[in-house]
């Protein structure tokens, strides 16, 4: 059982929170970040193609929703 007397409980909780939060967020960001990369590259490809053709790129889904 760890010593968590006095101010130590604060640091014990913070350290435990760091390990748990960091492990979780790493997995989550690994999955969601890959999707962000795919989307970003697809959008940039569309922009570059549109620039080359002299037309406006198709709006992103979020922009479409706003419109």
């Amino acid at each position, binding site marked *: 059982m*760890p*010593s968590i007397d*006095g*101010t*130590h409980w*604060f*640091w*014990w909780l*913070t*350290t435990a*929170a*760091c*390990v748990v*939060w*960091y*492990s979780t*967020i*790493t997995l*989550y*960001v*690994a999955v*969601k*970040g*890959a*999707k*962000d*990369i795919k*989307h*970003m*590259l697809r*959008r*940039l*490809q569309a*922009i*570059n193609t549109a*620039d080359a053709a002299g037309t406006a790129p198709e709006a*992103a889904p*979020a922009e479409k929703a706003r419109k």
Partner: protein
Amino acid sequence: MTHFTWLDGSLVGLYLVATMVAGIMVRKYVGKVEHFLIAGREMNVYLGIASLAATEFGIVTCMYTAQNGYSFGFAGAIPGLCMAAAMFVVGWTGFCVKPLRDAGVMTIPELFERRFGPRVRWAAGVVIVLGGLLNMGVFLRIGGEFLVYVSGMNPRYLEITMTVLLVAVAVYTILGGMLSVLITDYLQFIVMSVGLIAVTVLILQHVGWDALVAAVDRHYGAGGFNPFVNAKLGWEWVAFNAVLNLAAVLTWQTTIQRLLAAKDTATGRKIYTRTSFFFVCRFLIPGVWGMATLAALTPATIAALPAAAQANISLYGMPVYLSTLLPTGLMGILVAAMLAADMSTDSSYMLTWGSVIYNDILAPFRKQTSEKRGLLVNRCIVAAIGVFLLLYGLWYPLGGNLWDYLTVTGTIYLSSMAVLLIACCYWPRANNWGAAAAIAVGAMVPVAFLTLEKLPATKAFIQAHLPASRAGLATFALVALAMVAGSLLKPQRTMSAAG
């Protein structure tokens, strides 16, 4: 005796090849300067989190946060708590970052031009680059020294190893700009995080929480847990870190570039709030490594180290300890993780200061240029920064506390830029006189401090009466005063004159 073997070397080599390939492959998407500098503002939340976290954690971060843990115990992690709080509040409220992102600028000085004129933009650009490059100057050597101690590499190969690493980073940064930085940051975030978590769990298992707490208590007493009762820290140090980290969140160009590359303001703010807790981990996780070093290193182990390491054991103790603790395989993961951390930091920093040089310092000399020529200029600037880092970064002799050096050099621009940004966004009376005075004071005070700290005649006085935190707080106060005084001194145009 280190446990770094061919298996570890293979893991590191595999990681380096994968990063290089990924970084170079995305160069084909770079069609404009905007793509090169801010990824065409197409970055979404989770990629932003990965990139921000990877950028703001390098080997140098690991070294100074572990040094804080070794030197001050848990109290040394307070800057991380300050930064996390600042980042969460700023992201949640949109303080300064909302008007900044809404303005659609590529750098902070570009926003200043709209309010304070082109000269202030130029001066702000110079100060940002000066402070940023001085700050970054120590990254390479510290990173190399970590690798020497942890892997048992011959110190003779430090320069060549770090040169090869920097060239590799420069190649993909020059080719792909922010896009390569984001993709490699993502990979580096994963590798770095796996390494950090695995090593921390192993350390906590090996040393144990009770032994860690006992070591801190034995060396620092209550001051190892509470910075306010620590004789070397105190309220000035806590106050300075609170102010400094708020300024960093608002204006540190590598952080701000993630906000500016985000696809919209709401995304930028989400990146801030959701990454905020990472900054606690950023200080506490290596801090635990430093405290474990304090608990585990015996006088006999320290006596067997080279004289340079013994002289600065608070800095070099952690890699020495890890070299004896980690088994084969995990050692490779740690080295790959630390290389990942360093590469993501170096690439982002080179690109960031390069973006300010191109966008703000060269702005008055830049005529209408084509996108192709703009890209070429940007690539040359990044290459030039790489050369500077090799020359400055590998020979600057660092003395004293690493975190103090970084805060003092960072203050060169953080103090003035934070004051300028707040005034620019929220004080209608602010003008170019105040901005110029703030920039001048913000640059002069830290430079004077660094100089006086080195001069034999003043060194003792500075050490006795002017700790880095007091000098830093004084700088922020004087800069704010200069902004107010300068702005109020400038005659306001009357209606008839204005008309």
